[in-house]
């Protein structure tokens, strides 16, 4: 067993796992959207042959007037890999990444009100709470529980990790300051790069198929 942050090349296999396990499915583009918007947040569990046996696909809700919070788009573990606690392990990784990379304050998700197994997992194992009921949330008309879990418990850990990183060696290096600095002239910087030799071919005439008769 191996749990790691999902890479772009995992996404197609996550889609496969999703289609095997869950009734809510998405086209590849939606997976790419997750992978290229919040690359830190999705995780996979793979077996010895690098086959995916579970995944969590997660995102941020970034409405400007709301506190930043994460959202679990999809979570699945293959039936053949149950009882290893993978769901919890995957969720813990995703939640921590939300807090660290995006300062998420809580994480939310939706679950079918009929899905008692999932509801029990979220409530008892993962300690989510029901926040609301969203009527007819699913395509087939079923209602969803909107569930929430606060990430306060991670504040201390995040702090601790920061301290750990700062405590590491390499003292000779000055830290960057993001404080006051003089304005840098963009044009001047550009000149330094010496980019002026633009290829003149860029403007060469080209014959476009089907327009020969026009010229």
């Amino acid at each position, binding site marked *: 067993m191996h749990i790691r942050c999902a890479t772009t090349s995992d996404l197609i296999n996550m889609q496969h796992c999703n*289609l095997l396990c869950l009734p809510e*499915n998405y086209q590849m583009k939606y997976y790419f959207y997750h992978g290229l918007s919040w690359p830190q947040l999705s995780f996979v569990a793979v077996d010895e042959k690098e086959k995916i046996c579970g995944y969590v696909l997660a995102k941020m809700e970034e409405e400007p007037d709301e506190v930043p919070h994460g959202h679990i788009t999809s979570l699945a573990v293959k039936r*053949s890999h149950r009882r290893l606690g993978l769901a919890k392990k995957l969720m813990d990784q995703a939640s*921590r990444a939300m807090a*660290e990379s995006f300062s998420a304050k809580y994480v939310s998700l939706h679950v079918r009100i009929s899905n008692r197994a999932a509801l029990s997992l979220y409530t008892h194992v993962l300690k989510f709470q029901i926040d609301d009921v969203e009527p007819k949330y699913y395509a087939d008309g079923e209602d969803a529980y909107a569930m929430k879990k606060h990430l306060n418990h991670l504040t201390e850990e995040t702090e601790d990790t920061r301290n750990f*990183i700062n405590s590491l060696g390499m003292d000779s290096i000055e*830290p960057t300051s993001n404080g006051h600095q003089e304005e840098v002239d963009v044009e001047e910087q550009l000149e330094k790069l010496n980019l002026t030799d633009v290829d003149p071919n*860029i403007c060469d005439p080209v014959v476009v198929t089907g327009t020969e008769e026009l010229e």
Partner: protein
Amino acid sequence: MAKDLPPKENALFKRILKCYENKQYKNGLKHARQILSNSKFQEHGETLAMMGLTLNCLGRKVEAYDNVKRGLRNNLRSHVCWHVFGLLQRSDKKYEEAIKCYRNALRWDKDNLQILRDLSLLQIQTRDLDGYKITRRQLLMLRANQRAGWIGYAISLHVMGDYEDALNVLQTFRKTQEGKPADYEFSELLMYEASIMAEGGKTECALDHIYKHRAAIVDVEAWLSMAGDLHIKLGQMREAGLIFERLIQRNPENKEYIGQFIKAQQPETEEEALGVCMKLHEKYPRSEAVTVCTLNMCSGESFRAFVDKYMQRQLRKGVPPLFNMLKHQFNDANKMSIISELVHGYCKSLEVCQKFNSDSEEEELPTSYLHVLIFLAQLFDYKRDIQEALDYINKAITHTPTYIDPYLVKGKIYKHAGNMVEAVHWLEEARNLDLADRYLNCKSAKYLLRAGMKERAEELCALFTRENTNPVDNLNEMQCMWFLTESASAAYNKQDWPATLQKCHEIEKHFVDIVEDQFDFHPYSMRKMTLRAYIGLLKLEDQLRGHDFYSKGAKVAINTYLHLHDQPNGQTNGHGNGESDGLTEKELKKQLSKQKRAEQWKKKQDEAKEKQGTTGGKDTQKKNTTGTDGEVVAPPIVGTELVKTETPLEDVMRFLDPIRTLSPQCPDTHTLAFEVFYRKGKILLMIQSIKRAIRTNPSTPEIPLHLTKLCDYVSKHPESDELVKGIITDEMEGLVPGGKISTWLDSYAAEHVDGLSQTFSVGCARAFLDSDSTRTHLETVLKFDFSKASLPSCLYVLEKLQAGSLKPSPEDMALYKKHVHQRYPLCPSFKLEKDIKR
């Protein structure tokens, strides 16, 4: 723009542009017509072009092209007309043509930002990396105050492998950013820089960089693992050790962290490494990854002690994947026998005293015994001892008939025994115990397809697809690849060529779409600054057709096209089921309904667009990056049309080229390539295919026959070009020294006496050289010691014999089946027909 129009018309023209941007196409058309109604401007080029572009967005393709071309003809010096023509071609995915149009447009307005941006997008999409670099540089020169200009140029340098300059550009850009608050995007930028440094081998530089900026980097996980890896590369083991210790604490299931942690402790012997691992295990006793790592490292008695404890705990807990977790230990025969011994011991002991060992203190619950039974069934199945496996799994099912897992195991045992119908039965038993579980549903449907029961499989799938839609269409829309590859194989097995090609082309179409999906992410990722992920996307897309899903479909397609070439009139092999060729009434109806579906396609597409390709909840429906209007709607793929091809050996290249490039590790790729090139008469490519097949796996059974055919072909087709002739002679000498193919076959046969497929193939090759000897070679195959033959090889030979290889008589076929039947009594393929009737 539109400099040649008077103020009133010019104002109207601007409105057309505005309407186009705001997607108010009807209004746009109205304004265009107003200008064109003035007799002085009825041939106004730019207006005509814009009218065409607007019509395109309304789906009126023909008129769109007419207007745009007319506009261009009237104003060949207008960048607007050229740009519009480029946009039109782009919407039809004619990227190469669109690029040419944009370049013509730039000829008349060389600093037009919008055109340059559109051009750069197509250049990266088509991987015209040189062109992309030039365009990005131009964009940066024109707008040095825009972030995208810098980032885009840096990416263009990076993808060309010019790390030095890419870093220069990024560092220069970063100087212009100082003073701004550090945020996620800035953090991503810093990590992107670090990744370029590491990729370019500048290890120290990368480490300095991430330390220097550690306060600004929010992606802690990436920071830690990168710092750790770099420290290890530089031999700074103390720091690396601290970092990986921290990473394991954060995620004890990551085997890379574990591996790096052990490395950082610099163990000098395997024993020391094991000691490190054991310590980790004490600290993280629940970590599966640490456990597996420990199991991999220890051997002999320490393995026995460790695995004993581990298995007892998991069996007590009832962890169904236990067998899968241990399976890869079986590569070591010694470990396998230890595991086998232990579990057999548990079984006996539990039967006597409800304890794993007679000297254990605790008594176990009955579920421990149940899981022991299941484990033993899997173990015997792994060894292909079908009868023992069935005995144990039957005991398990009798023990607890309501437990689902044993039914799945029993189905799998029957699958391995070659009896898919029986396998389906047990999968259905499992599925019926939990109808709400899609995993069970999919497994069952997959088995049904393998058993050739397509309709039933589709009925099952319908239980989990969107209501009121055709389940097959819905699974296709959701890009459900397993269903497509299995359906293609099922149709192929029934020699239903139209359905086979239909499915294979649907798979291919999904890969086209997934490549297309990149398009919106080029500008998007630059905005979001998720550049490491973006570079990952570019790499993934370049390798996309190397995915198993693709090669599975491609291989079926290639076999089908080969068949269409060999039997162009749609004859079947003669021995197969051959149900699908003559059009029965049912088939005709099906075809008609397919045509109907084609007509409804357009309508459906529009609906689908609204749904934005998801069956998920509400929040997923509103999200989509962008969608371009007027994009081509692909015509539906119709298998009955595809099989009518006159040029199967050309069509097949669409599937063969990608797997030759991207799946070269698979011997099938090269044997199929040989079959294609042999029919095309391409000697050099035949040679290349055989060489690659030998390199990937010298025991590939097709090699003897292919090589023999190649020798024969070369001798019958003398090459006139001296240079080519020289190459062929050299290569042939390398493959078959002295041209003595019989000697080659003798030594190949001697090396593979235990292989049924290889023995068979050598027989076919010898029969090819001397057809009078066919009978002798057939008899060699029939006298084979089948106790040594694997089921797949028996099926492989059966298929070839049925297709007429070695010219067996019905009696020979019966004899072959009889022999194999004794070895594999459960596989229906080897039952004689009279037995089946009984």
